[in-house]
């Protein structure tokens, strides 16, 4: 087995606020292997987003070690090792979908022909081919979020960090996007870290589910999913699925009990 993509040990992050220190992360230990789909689930304030932001070098841990592809998170950021998807699509209204996807490519200095080729390719990956010339406001919320995933995929980083990307969408759209995301993950063999507060979403998508709890933000359980990688939506009605969901729920409850 190759070295883990993400390796966190004894990670602490304390924010100094007016009301005294807030322990956003405490003693977080986690390895993420190449090709994993890891979900982070927990109530708000449990540090799941903060942890993802640490991996992206958008926050700096106060203690402990964290490596991404064997580098520090900041080196990894500079090496453009990951694509980040935020909760809101955050597309530029003054750019077409294709131009939005080109944004990171322009910044990273890809040549024109390569930009066009990649836009074509990722639009197909997120099932938006033919929409390149449209402006964001002409697309539905779900399509906009797909475009933002395409933007994160465009420069072909091996690691995809997603922070509640479907949190603002309704359940039917969310189911559909979850299914597409799994397909995309199978096709691209990327490593995905996915923050969510939906139990079914976490269980349906993940190979591993990291259950977190707040005050201080910490990992209370890591569940290896026994489900096969190919997952039709109907898998959510199988006893295995329900059992994992149950365990996640128990983990979340246990985290709350000892506050």
């Amino acid at each position, binding site marked *: 087995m190759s070295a883990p993509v993400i390796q966190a040990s004894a990670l602490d992050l304390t924010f100094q606020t007016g009301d005294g220190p807030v322990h956003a992360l405490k003693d977080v230990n986690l390895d993420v292997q190449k090709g994993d789909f890891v979900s982070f689930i927990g109530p708000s304030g449990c540090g799941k987003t903060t942890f993802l932001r640490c991996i992206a070098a958008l926050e700096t841990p106060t203690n402990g070690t964290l490596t991404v592809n064997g580098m520090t998170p900041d080196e990894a*950021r*500079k090496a*453009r090792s990951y694509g*980040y998807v*935020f909760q809101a699509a*955050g597309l*530029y209204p*003054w750019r077409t979908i294709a131009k939005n996807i080109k944004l990171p490519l322009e*910044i*990273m200095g890809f040549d024109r022909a390569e930009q066009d080729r990649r836009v074509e390719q990722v639009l197909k990956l997120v099932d938006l081919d033919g929409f390149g010339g449209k402006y964001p406001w002409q697309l539905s919320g779900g399509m906009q979020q797909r475009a933002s995933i395409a933007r994160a995929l465009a420069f072909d980083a091996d690691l995809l960090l997603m922070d509640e990307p479907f949190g603002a969408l309704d359940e039917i759209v969310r189911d559909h996007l979850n299914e597409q995301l799994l397909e995309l993950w199978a096709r691209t063999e990327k490593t995905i870290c996915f923050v969510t507060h939906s139990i079914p979403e976490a269980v349906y998508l993940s190979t591993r589910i990291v259950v977190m709890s707040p005050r201080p933000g910490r990992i209370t359980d890591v569940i290896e999913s026994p489900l096969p990688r190919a997952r039709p939506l109907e898998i959510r009605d199988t006893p295995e699925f329900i059992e994992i969901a149950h365990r996640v729920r128990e983990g979340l409850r246990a985290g709350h009990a000892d506050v």
Partner: protein
Amino acid sequence: MKSLLAILSVVLVILAIWYVAAVPMNIAGSLTQAERGGMEVNPPGAAERRDISGWVLAANNPQAIPLTWAEKRPVLPAPHQVAVELWETTVLKKVTSKRSLVYHAWVTLSATLLGFAIGTGLGIVLAVGIVHSKVMDMSVMPWAIVSQTIPIIALAPMIIVVLYSIGVQGIIPKAVISAYLSFFPVVVGMVKGLRSPDRMQTDLMHTYNASKTSTFWKLRLPSSLPYLFASLKVGIAASLVGAIVGELPTGARAGLGARLLAGSYYGQTVQIWSALFAAAILASVLVGIVSMTERNVLRKMGLAR
């Protein structure tokens, strides 16, 4: 249609107030003239009438009321007098004539546009500096604010004198004063606009390891445009005021400011009012042009629908 009716009624009300106001303001002069012309006036004798209010005079001499709207040098000219003067000095005069308002408006407009260009450029440059450098934010911004607390009418003569002493005259001093007034709204608006991208947008740029330059061109500048246009509308009107004020202390022979000044020297109130209206019309045309550009640009950018 309904809004047109509302607009027209507001205009009509203003015109009515104006005509009514002209009566007591001008009646004393009109009566003096009428008495000289042989009209029966109550009470007779200008000295007798000196301490009687305009309203009372008008009530006692209703036959003289129409005269108050046709004075040669009224205290307050009637609207149609101003309109006639405007018509005669714009359409009926050659634009090269020294008495043409179009000529004077052009003199002021050229200083306005030059000043607006300088002010906008300076404003944008300062805003970019302020947004990117904490030192500039703390050292330049207070001065920009202080600069606007000094009445321009006090500062304008000094600017003109100082520039004259180093051999600069003509359009430049006026443009400098108009730039002085117009750079400020641009700085304030642009600083706000360049800082308008939210945390998520700047984080996204950070994940791409984007340089400050790319972040500026691809994110900050486009996001600032709606703010810039709002500032430009204030700025262009301020530029015009600046150019007119710049014409006042120099005894300039051309420009709307010079027209205002000459009018007040010679008691030509009709000329003053027509110059005022010319300035107002010019300002609204300029603001209208900026608004139209704004609408087109923002629509093209998908920022306004």
